[in-house]
Structure formats: structure tokens, C-alpha cells
């Protein structure tokens, strides 16, 4: 709750900082301070020292998973600010407002990490979505950015409409918004409840870009300014998954047998479409958009299996995937040419950047000794533990193999092709943070329990 309040307040602080200073470095400094405070407050809250204690009447309930997830989100955003904060200045004139919108999104994420009623779910999802529409269209002179924003806005509003319809149907059948009331006594699915659940499944799949609701993803991720794509594809996406799984675990967990096949088919389609289409992309930015769909397929395993290992795996996956993707995007932003050829010869001209980005790509591909491998391992073993979807596990392994192809195409361009990559000036901070990300990726890959142990720590 404290993180929610502070992030909303800091959004307002960022708005006012735009009046008093025009210096990009100062605004960035305020944003980074705010985020560091947010992280501290959340950790304190985790340990039981809340700054303000508000009775939410059971509408927001934080458990260790929520706190851990929020810690990962804030940590990843902090790294993202350090890496790409300076590139936001190139998008447009409203740097302070961009940061304000990102803080509002973080407030929305704090809601979806802890909602206990459908009302809060709706509010949280909307608080995440509306600033994102704006950030997508923030490059106003670029027609592609405008198109992406409009497309995202129209489709996003439509899926929100579906979600509201679903919430209304569920309310009609159960007479309550509370997830626990909905979950209690849901032994059989009645028509109203089933209809509502189906609509919620569709709209949440849209928000996390799972196939067949993924059509907006490549266009929006490609059209949006790359700095914001990086944020959208990582932190916002994992927040969507967290909400998705929290919703279905609490309210429809008891009837899982009836919708598991649906979820499994969505997962299979997401894996296949994401991976196979990514193979044919010419632009690395678009490839990363499809790769984010493919990775969403793996995160869907937590929904299909719906057990402790799956939730644990989702937390771990959130960290592994966000870190690696933020790293790759940060380097991509510095390049002039977003095609695979743009990476040619990076290994010779910028050995440090090349090495760190390679580690991130290896992690995304799921090579052992990186966090990505352990993340995929968690997800697949959750599905094996569930036992009913072994065919999906086999498909997952095959798709992971396909994904190696397109990630290694970038690595091949970096090290085995000659060229003169045009790279913008990179600061020392950038290099330090890139090294930090690479180290974290390898560290969590070798000692995965260092992250998941926090979930079972009792203060």
C-alpha cells in the first residue's frame, strides 16, 4: 500500500519538477531518487514497518508474493531508468511528464499486484493502460508512433470493454466483486459465471498479448519509441501476468479442470506463433516484439499449471526476462540501425557492450548458467508437476529450441560479421549498469534460490 501511495505522489512530484527545471539530468535525478525511495519503502513494508497503515477493507491484500514481485518491478525499473533515462529526452520535449506517467503506471502495477476485488483489478489495469497509450504516441512527429498509439488505444479500449462485461456477468452470478467470494463454492460453472470467466480470459490474454489476442503487439511495440517499448515489453507485461494468475488462482482455481484446456491451447498458440514469426523478422526491434510474445507463452505455463511452483516460477521469470530484455533494448536504442545488420561488427568496436548484450540474449534463449534457463526450467517443471499437460511441455521445449535461432542471429552478427556499427555515445554509468545486469543474469542463473528464498522468509 505504501508503494502505491508513494508512486502516485511521486508522479505528481515529477509533474511539478517539469515546471521548476528544464534540465534533463535534474529531472532524471528526481525520478531515480523517487524510484529508490519506492524500493526502500516497499522493502520496509515487506518487513512489516509500514509508514502509513490504511484500512482497504480487504480490497488490496499484500502477501509475500506481491511484495517480492513489486521489489523486482521497482528494481528492474531502476535499472531501466539508469540505462535508458537519458534516451527519453530524444523522444520529445515532455521529459518530466514521461516520468510522471511511468510513476502512475507503477502505481497501477502496485494495485494489480495486490487486488482482491474485480473493481481494483479494473482500476489497476486501466491505470496501467492509459499512460501506456500516451507513451506509445509520444513521438508526435512520427506517423508510425501515431498509428501505433491509435491502434493500441482502440483495441485496448475494446478489450477493457470485454473485461467490464465479464466483470458484470460475474457480479450478476455471485453478487460480489470479491475474488474470495467468487472463488468460494464455485464447484460447477454456471452459465453466467462461465461467460464472465471466458470474457475475462480473453481480455487478460489481450493485455499480456497471448495468441490469438496478440495482433496489436508487433505493430505497437514497433511503432512506439524504443525507450518505451522496452518498458512496455518487460515490466508492464509481467505485471499483466501477475494479475492474470492472481485472478484465476483465487477466483477460478477450484474449477481449473474446466478451463485448463483453454489456457493450454492459448499457451500453445502463443508459443508457436511467437517463435515461428520471430524467425522471419528483419528488424531486431520487431523480432524482440515477437520474442516477447514467445516469452509470454512460457509465462502462461504458470496459468496452465496453477501450482506453487508456477507462482514461484512466475516471480523468477519476471526477474530473468525483464533484466535480459531491458539490457538488449538498452543497447538497441544506442544503435542507429535496427536491422540485424546494424549489429555487425559490434564485438570488435564495443567489446563490453557486445559481451553484455550477448549474455542477455543467451539468457533469453534459455542457455544453461543464465537466469533464462532456470526460468524456463521452473515453468516446465511446474507443468510436469501438474501432470495433465505433458504435450504442452514437449511443445515448450521445441519452441525454446526454435528461439535459439533468432537470438543467435544477433550474436552471430555481433561477433562473426564485419561492419562498422553506428553506436551513440555511451556513458560510464551505462556500461556499469550493463555489466551489473549481465552479472545478475548469470548470478541468478547459478543460484536461483537466492531470489525465490525471499518468498518464504518470515519476518
Amino acid at each position: 500500500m505504501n508503494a502505491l501511495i508513494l508512486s502516485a505522489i511521486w508522479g505528481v512530484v515529477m509533474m511539478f519538477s517539469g515546471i521548476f527545471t528544464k534540465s534533463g539530468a535534474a529531472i532524471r535525478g528526481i525520478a531515480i531518487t523517487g524510484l529508490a525511495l519506492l524500493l526502500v519503502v516497499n522493502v520496509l513494508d515487506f518487513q512489516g514497518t509500514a509508514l502509513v497503515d490504511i484500512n482497504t477493507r480487504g480490497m488490496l491484500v499484500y502477501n509475500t508474493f506481491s511484495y517480492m514481485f513489486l521489489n523486482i518491478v521497482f528494481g528492474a525499473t531502476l535499472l531501466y531508468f539508469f540505462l535508458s533515462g537519458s534516451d527519453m529526452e530524444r523522444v520529445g520535449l515532455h521529459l518530466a511528464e514521461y516520468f510522471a506517467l511511468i510513476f502512475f503506471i507503477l502505481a497501477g502495477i502496485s494495485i494489480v499486484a495486490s487486488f482482491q476485488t474485480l473493481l481494483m483489478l479494473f482500476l489497476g489495469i486501466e491505470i496501467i493502460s492509459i499512460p501506456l497509450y500516451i507513451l506509445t504516441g509520444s513521438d508526435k512527429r512520427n506517423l508510425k508512433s501515431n498509428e501505433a498509439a491509435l491502434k493500441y488505444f482502440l483495441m485496448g479500449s475494446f478489450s477493457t470493454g470485454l473485461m467490464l462485461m465479464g466483470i458484470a456477468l460475474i457480479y450478476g452470478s455471485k453478487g460480489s466483486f470479491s475474488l474470495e467470494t467468487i472463488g468460494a463454492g464455485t464447484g460447477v460453472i454456471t452459465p453466467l459465471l462461465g461467460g464472465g470467466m471466458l470474457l475475462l480470459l480473453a481480455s487478460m490474454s489481450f493485455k499480456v498479448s497471448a495468441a490469438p489476442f496478440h495482433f496489436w503487439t508487433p505493430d505497437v511495440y514497433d511503432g512506439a519509441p524504443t525507450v518505451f517499448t522496452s518498458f512496455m515489453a518487460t515490466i508492464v507485461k509481467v505485471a499483466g501476468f501477475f494479475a492474470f494468475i492472481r485472478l484465476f488462482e483465487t477466483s477460478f482455481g477450484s474449477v481449473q479442470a474446466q478451463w485448463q484446456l483453454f489456457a493450454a491451447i492459448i499457451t500453445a498458440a502463443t508459443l508457436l506463433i511467437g517463435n515461428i514469426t520471430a524467425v522471419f523478422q528483419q528488424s531486431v526491434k520487431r523480432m524482440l516484439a515477437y520474442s516477447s510474445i514467445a516469452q509470454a507463452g512460457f509465462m502462461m505455463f504458470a496459468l496452465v499449471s496453477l501450482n506453487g511452483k508456477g507462482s514461484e516460477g512466475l516471480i523468477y521469470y519476471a526477474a530473468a526476462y525483464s533484466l535480459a530484455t531491458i539490457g538488449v533494448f538498452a543497447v538497441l536504442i544506442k544503435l542507429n540501425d535496427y536491422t540485424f545488420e546494424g549489429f555487425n561488427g559490434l564485438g570488435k568496436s564495443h567489446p563490453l557492450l557486445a559481451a553484455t548484450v550477448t549474455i542477455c540474449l543467451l539468457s533469453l534463449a534459455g542457455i544453461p548458467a543464465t537466469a533464462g534457463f532456470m526460468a524456463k526450467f521452473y515453468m516446465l517443471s511446474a507443468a510436469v508437476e501438474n501432470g495433465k499437460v505433458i504435450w504442452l511441455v514437449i511443445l515448450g521445449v521445441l519452441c525454446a529450441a526454435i528461439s535459439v535461432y533468432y537470438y543467435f542471429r544477433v550474436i552471430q552478427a555481433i561477433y562473426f560479421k564485419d561492419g562498422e556499427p553506428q553506436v551513440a555515445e555511451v556513458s560510464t554509468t551505462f556500461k556499469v549498469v550493463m555489466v551489473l545486469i549481465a552479472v545478475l543474469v548469470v548470478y541468478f542463473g547459478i543460484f536461483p534460490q537466492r531470489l525465490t528464498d525471499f518468498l518464504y522468509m518470515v519476518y
Partner: protein
Amino acid sequence: MSATQILFWFLSALAIVSALSVVISKNPVYSVLSLIITFFAVSGHYILLNAQFIGIVNLIVYAGAIMVLFLFVIMLMNLNQDNEPQKNKWLKMAGVVSGGCLMLVFVAAFKTSEVNGKIAQTIDGNIGLTETLGKALFNEYVVPFEISSILFLSAMVGAVVIGKKGD
């Protein structure tokens, strides 16, 4: 058939017909006008359900303010049939088929729904009065009520970012 029931069927038919004409009519101004009729019909439903406050707010805010704004924008943009882009025939067909499937499933499902035959409290009860609503909003639902201010604030910031001149 009581007067309430007659009103209910009349408003329902009006809402469905005008909602369809929003989608079907070629002229955007007709679409907007039909949408206003839809809002009126829905407001009538609210009032039938004893939700007077929401019914009136729906009229004032949506049918009144927003739709008038809408109408102005459409008239200023001078849209007409000639420059409406031709949509793909197959795409239209696919839309009709998938939308129809959803409707079929829902109609089939809700025919046997658990609340079927239960009629909402239409005659007595003061659940929709401003006083009751205000009490619920500031007691039970005060947290979502306050949090929605973040949503509106972010929308306002967004409008400024998109609308401001200079870049």
C-alpha cells in the same frame, strides 16, 4: 402486462434498434444521433431499476456533454461517405461470423442462467438515491474511489502531453 413491463420492453427495443443503427448507418452524424437515443434508452432502464442518480448522470454527462462534443468534432471534420475507406469484404464477413458466434453462445448460455426469471427490484427500495450512493462511495468503496483519481490524473497528464504545441 404492467406499465413497468411495457416500458421495459419499449426501452429495450429502442436501445437495441438504435444501437444497431449506430453501427449500420453510413452517415456519421446519424450514428451519433442514434447513440444519443441509445443513451436515453439506457438511462430509462436505470430509472426503472431505481438508480435515479446514475440515470440522470448518464443523461447529463454522456448524452449531454460528451455526445454534443462528439457531434461538433464530426461536423468540423466534415466526414462523408465518399472518403470513407472501403473495408475488406472478407474481413467484414469474419467479423459478422465471430460476433454472431459469441452472441449465439451467450444467448444459449443465458437462457438457462441461474438468475433467469428473477426480476430486479423495480418499485420500492431506495438503493439508487444519491444519499445511499454517497454513503456507499465514501464508506465501503472509498479506497477505489480515491484511487480512481490517479487514473484521471494520468489521463489529464496524457492529454497535455499529446495536445501541447511545440513538438
